[in-house]
Every structure is written in structure tokens, then in C-alpha cells.
């Protein structure tokens, strides 16, 4: 039986499958539900300084089974209210990773410090949400700004800091390198891909906010390409995100260089039972291929390096 336990820098996970930020993360009970279903860790909703309702509906467009376009607009209850949800999840034994977003380095650092106090095992910085004005891509698309934010956060917390990078940029690996140089313990890639849907009968965008972020199976090749390039550029662990719904998808990411993966869109409709299937499927597949552990498969698709 292949060993699925993995380490992401200083963070120990029972298996490589993390619940992605933005999915089932508004309530601690939902986070705990994902944990109980077998996730190796759960990432919270991205939390900001104030309660934020997000954009009006429509906030989602569904493309049969291959994609979701969302412009939720970072709805979250704010840092004052959210700790109770983290506590509820931790009380059920979950490994919780806190996600934060801010308009500048100082806000990121303040939020990271406060969320750390709730007992999260690591922090993931949302540098890359492509459709929230004033946040996300506009903040994290410049390597120098990424470095500034990561540096400020690393200075104000003790837990590992994960920088989540955007695909909506010509050089995601440069962003990852900047984050690493500033002290990030790991990189996660990718967030959603900028996209748009138009309703031709109504002559208008479908989503209330217009532009949105594409997730799901359609973006898997994009995520894989970013992980591939980032793995070649940095030495810190890489977490792969984007379009994972089967164990085979996860294995592609591991072989591309990811030591763990995040699962989001695949939770749609079928729920967190997907985690049980992923864990079982990966274990079987690793056995079939002769890998003693998930860790042993990391990066093996790359030509031998150094």
C-alpha cells in the first residue's frame, strides 16, 4: 500500500488532497465535513478585514462537466467572525490552512497574524484571484509586489506561508521565484483562469460582475504547465491546483512536480465524497506503477535534474 502522507515544507498532511479555498469554506462544519470525507487538509475561504457580501448573482456559470466560471467576488464573513468557523473545524480534528487576501502587504500581514491565532497549520495567500477589483491579480501579478507581501507575512507569522499564484500572467514561475526569495514555504498554482460568458439573447455578460475565473477540468493543462515551470524554477514544494477530479489527474500533477494538490470544482454536486475516491484511486494507481509513496512520484516526469 503506497504511503500517501506528504510533507509540504513544515506542514505534514495525511494525504496529498487539500480542499481548495472557496469551496465549502464558509462554515467550520463544512470544512469538518470535507475532513471527515478524507481530505488531507482543508483550506478556508479567503478572509479579508471586513465582512464582504461578494458580487450580486449570477456569480456562476456552469459548462456541462468541463468547467465552471465564477465571479463570487471574495464573499467572506471577515476576520472578526471567521475564527469561530476555524475553531469548529479544528475541534473536529481537521488540519486547517487559512487563506487571506488584502489590498497591500500590511493588510495581508495583519490578517495572516490574526488568522494564525486561530490555530491554522499554515497560511495560503490569495495573490491571484483574477476578478476581485483591488485584490488578486492586481496585487499579485508583479514579482516585486509578491515579494513585498510574502516578506511582510512571513515576518508576522510562524506557520508555513504558501503563496498561491495566478495563471493570468506571462510568467507565473517568476511570481513563484519572487515568493520563494521572500520566504514562502511553498507555492500553490494555479488560481482560476480569467474568463467570460456572454448571453447572446440578452446581449450581456452572464455573470453580474462580467469577467470571472474559469475552473474545472478545462484548466488542468494550464495548471499542469504552471506547476511544471514553477517546479523547474523554485526549490520549495509546489502544490498543484486546477481541474483535478480523478486520481489520474492528481498523479499528473505529482509527476509534474506537485507534492500535494487542491480540489475545488470537483466537489460540485457530488460533494466531498470525491476525496474518498481520490485517496483510494491514487493509492491503487501508485501501487500499480510501483511507487512506494506519493512523495516518490513527485516530479518524475521531468528530465533528471542537477
Amino acid at each position, binding site marked *: 500500500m503506497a504511503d500517501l502522507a506528504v510533507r509540504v515544507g513544515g506542514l505534514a498532511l495525511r494525504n496529498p488532497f487539500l480542499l481548495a479555498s*472557496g*469551496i*465549502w*469554506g*464558509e*462554515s467550520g*462544519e*463544512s470544512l469538518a*465535513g470535507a475532513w471527515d470525507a478524507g481530505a488531507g487538509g482543508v483550506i478556508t*475561504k479567503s478572509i479579508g478585514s471586513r*465582512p*464582504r*457580501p*461578494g458580487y*450580486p*448573482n*449570477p*456569480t*456562476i*456559470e*456552469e*459548462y*456541462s462537466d468541463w468547467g*465552471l466560471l*465564477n465571479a*463570487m467576488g471574495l*464573499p*467572506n*464573513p*471577515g476576520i472578526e*467572525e471567521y475564527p469561530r468557523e476555524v475553531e469548529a473545524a479544528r475541534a473536529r480534528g481537521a488540519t486547517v490552512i487559512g487563506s487571506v487576501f488584502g489590498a497591500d502587504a500590511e493588510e495581508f500581514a495583519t490578517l495572516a497574524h490574526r488568522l494564525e491565532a486561530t490555530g491554522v497549520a499554515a497560511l495560503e495567500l490569495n495573490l491571484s484571484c483574477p476578478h476581485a477589483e483591488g485584490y488578486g491579480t492586481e496585487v499579485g501579478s508583479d514579482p516585486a509586489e509578491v515579494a513585498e507581501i510574502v516578506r511582510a507575512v512571513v515576518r508576522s507569522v510562524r506557520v508555513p506561508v504558501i503563496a498561491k499564484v495566478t495563471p493570468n500572467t506571462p510568467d507565473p514561475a517568476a511570481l513563484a521565484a519572487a515568493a520563494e526569495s521572500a520566504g514562502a514555504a511553498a507555492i500553490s498554482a494555479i488560481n482560476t483562469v480569467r474568463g467570460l460568458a456572454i*448571453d447572446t*439573447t*440578452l446581449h*450581456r455578460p*452572464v455573470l*453580474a460582475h462580467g469577467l470571472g475565473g474559469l475552473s474545472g477540468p478545462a484548466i488542468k493543462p494550464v495548471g499542469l504547465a504552471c506547476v511544471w515551470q514553477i517546479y523547474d524554477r523554485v526549490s520549495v514544494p509546489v502544490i498543484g491546483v486546477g481541474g483535478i477530479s480523478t486520481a489520474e489527474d492528481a498523479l499528473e500533477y505529482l509527476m509534474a512536480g506537485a507534492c500535494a494538490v487542491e480540489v*475545488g*470544482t470537483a*466537489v*460540485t*454536486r*457530488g*460533494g466531498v465524497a470525491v476525496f474518498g475516491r481520490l485517496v483510494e484511486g491514487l493509492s491503487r494507481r501508485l501501487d500499480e506503477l510501483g511507487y512506494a509513496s506519493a512523495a516518490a512520484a513527485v516530479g518524475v516526469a521531468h528530465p533528471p535534474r542537477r
Partner: protein
Amino acid sequence: MRSVVELTERVPETPSTVTLRFAFARDAAPGQFVMIWFPGDDELPMSLSYLDGSSKGVTIKSMGDTSRNVQRLEVGARVGIRGPYGNQFDLAPRRVLVVGGGSGSAVLAPAAERAAARGAKVTVALGATQAAELLFRRRFERMGARVEVATDDGSEGARGFVTGVADRLLATEEFDAVWTCGPEVMMQKVALAGRARGVPVFCSVERHMKCALGMCDACALGPFHVCVDGPVFPAERLLSLPEFAHSHRDPSGRRVPFGTR
């Protein structure tokens, strides 16, 4: 994914509710809801209040800005529909007590119609603030149900809450199931009354929704998501939840006690 349809009918039901009808061929069962996009305004979950054949309908109560704009939409206005989503009422029970409060009748009426058409004995306890607001009272009577009403102001039927009527009916008659929809505190009372009599109660629950696909957690209720595990829940699942009849969440996800805005 969405169908864009034109409103084919606009039927004022009570002073504060209106039914909007549209052509939507996809099959739907009583209890299910659709997400209706009012372009430029909002997209909201609405239980189907008419679902036989390809002409479907929703019945909207005036609550908040969007609903007032929406109530003024004319025949021919275009809306986007996605769904139907959610689960349905189990239509097997032969003797059903339907307990509706406020706009709760919107989801209960089509369920009662289907049950009556299958030969079930349907009894309805209907409550509202005043006589004119008893939603679908005539519709329930036309389907052959026995209807008893209660109004806050006593303008029709018993003066007081519909839960009093429901209590009396549960005490004096035999039912296989209770279906209820209305303010959550009301549904909790009905659920407790049914439990005390050993009658299973099913509640159609409402929560703020964004994705309606079981992903975003906006409609999380205890360990459930109203959009995929509901909206129809057996009361036994709800009565043990601290939030049931106590709090819901606002669009940011903050917990808000019922009764506050």
C-alpha cells in the same frame, strides 16, 4: 446552461405576492427550485409554484428591493432560468397535513396537487397576517383539500398562528406525513408537534444561495447544503441543528439571528 425565457403571465395572487409564469420544458418535481436571473438585477432561488407541463411558475413575495422590481416585470420580460435544483417531496403518504405560513404555500400547493391527484387525502392549515394574504387558499380548495385557516388579525378563520390549527388537527386526526413551509420558527413548532404525535414532518427550507451547485457554502445548514441536500428536509435532520429556527447567514456568510435584518 441557462434558458432565457419570456414571462407569459403575471398573476397577482395576494396584495403582496405575484405569480410569474414562463415556458420551461425541463421536468421538475414538487419541492424543487430554479435559479431565476432577472437581468441587471439579481439571480434568486425560487421554489416552483407551478410545475405541470411546460408552463412553469414561481410566486414571489415582496421582500427587499429586488423582489419589488421583480414584481413589476411585465409579460414579455425576459428572465434566465437554470435548474431545476434540489430534492422533492415524497408523494407516497396517503393522508397529508399541509401547513403553510406566509408565502410557504408557493412550494406546498404543487405538492398537494400531485398528492391529491394520486388519491391522497390532503388537509391544509393555512396561515397569514390577514385574510387577503392567504396564498393559494382557493387553489387548495379546488384540488379537493380540506382547508382550515388562521389569520393574525382574525379577519378570517381562527385568530392566531397557523401552528395552533396544526396542533389541533394533529391531535384529532390521523396523518401519514406533514409538509410545511413558512417562517422557520413556525416550521420548528410544526416539526415538534409532529414529533410529539409520531408523524414525520418535512420542511422546505430557505437559505441565501449563490451557486446552487453545492460548492460555495452560502446555503450551508449544519452539515447540509440546502441546494443539494434540500430544500426539503425531514424534520429529524433539522431539529438537532442549533441554527434551525435560530439563525441563517447573510451574503457575506456572517451568522444572523432570525428576526434581525
